[in-house]
């Protein structure tokens, strides 16, 4: 598990360090830097996988950008000269291992691939990879060394586990059109694409795994409880379900049984169902599918959800992630206040962060201190959602 993420000179993140838990929720105004933080982990993921190119970034849900936009470029401010960073520094540590890189790409003549200026992969204090700046002249500067040397590590080596977690990291941004099957998935991936594509097949696989997995049984049952108008869900071949000709033809579609409709006309597809139900199933698949990444992010996790459903789904999602037989870690960004009320923040593994810009535009990330006073208020007249909207937690827009 990633315990600490450090970022320097990446977009609005001039110097940020975050202590992560299992479930991490980031709140803040639009443009505060939430997505930048998720993307910083995405760039580190690409580096851990050996190549930082537009393609490797897009595969992780990171918006590719030219170095002039990737490297921080703040204006001169009172008492401070205008910084001119040469490198982006990214580091992750956890489970007694760490991986850090300094990445370089010239502003005036951008290259297709970022260069590794320095690279360090450690198990405790033992350096498995140490790439000093001078080494970039001897070895291929566009190739990460840790990704190559990973083949030599034992499968249970904590350094390898950390690297693999990083390599598998992706940022999901589910979109209604892709979930419904009416829009193509731009980044396909197992078990679901970054926009929610292949959801019907993934649901099918999770439901099949119920036979062997008590955990999959639990997640799929609780997901159904969140879709109060449905008696059941699953996936079916598109040819075996009433489907509008306007819907894009895909081999399988999500299938729901409506509990209020007459028996011979109560089956509907994801194309016709409420989008909230599709988002519930999408997150359930992330939690329960055996191939879903152990480390991932969902940007705007509340998309398309009624506030109360957002609260209940958040609560369930936390339970799913905390009780998963395979340790998993998730980063979520949200603008829905009710999401906060679904967080079991007494559990230190669930963490809430505010993301803000300072007066000079730098992003700062602050963990919300959870003490007895706050918990007592949250239980009573002042739920966290309200305290956030009141501005008392920070992480709000000043416009």
């Amino acid at each position, binding site marked *: 598990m990633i315990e600490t993420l450090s970022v320097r000179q990446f977009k609005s993140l001039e110097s940020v360090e975050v202590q992560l838990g299992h479930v991490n929720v980031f709140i803040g105004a639009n443009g505060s830097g939430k997505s930048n933080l998720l993307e910083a982990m995405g760039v580190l993921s690409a580096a851990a996988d050996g190549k930082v190119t537009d393609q490797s970034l897009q595969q992780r849900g990171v918006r590719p950008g030219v170095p002039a936009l990737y490297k921080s470029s703040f204006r001169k401010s009172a008492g401070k000269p205008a910084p001119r960073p040469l490198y982006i520094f990214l580091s992750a540590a956890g489970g007694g291992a760490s991986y850090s890189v300094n990445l370089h790409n010239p502003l005036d003549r951008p290259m297709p691939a970022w260069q590794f200026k320095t690279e360090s992969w450690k198990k405790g204090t033992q350096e498995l990879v140490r790439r000093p700046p001078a080494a970039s002249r001897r070895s291929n500067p566009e190739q990460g060394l840790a990704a190559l040397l990973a083949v030599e590590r034992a499968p249970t080596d904590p350094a390898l586990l950390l690297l693999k977690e990083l390599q598998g990291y992706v940022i999901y941004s589910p979109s209604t059109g892709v979930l419904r099957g009416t829009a193509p998935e731009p980044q396909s991936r197992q078990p679901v694409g970054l926009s929610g594509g292949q959801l019907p097949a993934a649901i099918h696989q999770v439901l099949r795994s119920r036979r062997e997995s008590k955990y999959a049984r639990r997640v799929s049952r609780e997901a159904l409880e969140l879709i109060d108008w449905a008696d059941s869900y699953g996936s079916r071949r598109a040819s075996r379900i009433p489907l509008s000709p306007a819907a894009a033809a895909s081999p399988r579609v999500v299938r729901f049984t409506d509990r209020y409709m007459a028996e011979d006309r109560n089956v509907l597809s994801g194309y016709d169902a409420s989008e909230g139900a599709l988002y519930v199933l999408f997150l359930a698949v992330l939690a329960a599918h055996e191939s879903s990444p152990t480390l991932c992010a969902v940007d705007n996790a509340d998309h398309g959800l009624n506030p109360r459903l957002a609260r209940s789904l958040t609560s369930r999602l936390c339970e799913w992630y905390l009780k998963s037989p395979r340790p998993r870690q998730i980063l979520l960004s949200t603008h829905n206040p009710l999401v906060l009320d679904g967080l079991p923040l007494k559990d230190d593994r669930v963490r809430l962060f*505010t993301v803000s810009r*300072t*007066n*000079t535009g730098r992003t700062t990330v*602050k963990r919300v*201190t959870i003490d007895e006073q*706050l918990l007592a*208020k949250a239980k009573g007249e002042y739920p966290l959602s309200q305290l956030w909207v009141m501005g008392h*937690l920070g992480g709000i827009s000043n*416009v």
Partner: protein
Amino acid sequence: MSEVLHVAIVVEGPTDYVVLTAAVEALLPGREIVFTQLQPKSSETLAPVGRETGLGWAGVYRWCRQASREGGGRVSGSVLFGSHDVLIVQVDADVAGKTYRSGHIEEDIQDLPCERPCPPPSATTNALRQVVLRWMGEAAVPAGCVLCTPSKSMEAWVIAALFPNHRLLKQKGSGWECHADPEAQLSQRPKKSRIRKTRKDYQSKSEEFVRAWPAVRKGLSEAKRFSKELLAQIASKPQ
């Protein structure tokens, strides 16, 4: 980056927010600061509805009452101090001449108006600060909190910052801080140098406010008091 300072701000209106943040930046050069505007709330451009607090001094009053309720009877008990290092509450000194009725507020204790002869401006602002503390449920200014009471209004600071040669500023003693309507002086400027009381116009002058703050602080007693009290609060916080 040194420790980021989180400053919560309660002001009468959006232009006051611009001036106040500029003043704080000028007082803490080089310090990274996150400002949170607690009042007025962004959605409150119309009359107060339900839990909304509204604009103006009445909005500050309602915010104080709401925050003290959340804090168990006093603002210092609010959870906002868990997320912010400093809370600044601003009320213009001309509020001392108002009545609760004029703010559409039902209040049992009629401690407004509380205006005193000016000069000195502090006679009125001291009385007004006691009133604001009562709104906040406090007997004295609590740790982490700074009161800001420009006399007679924030526009006195704006004119001192942007038009340091204004004829009324040349008055001896505390004359300018006792001028009943500095805002009118702003709107009476020649068209070329006129500034509308909008967030956008004030923001365009933000850097000028910052540069001029040392002179404002030197010339106006309430600006000096605010500066001193803010710096004292910051000094008690780790860098």
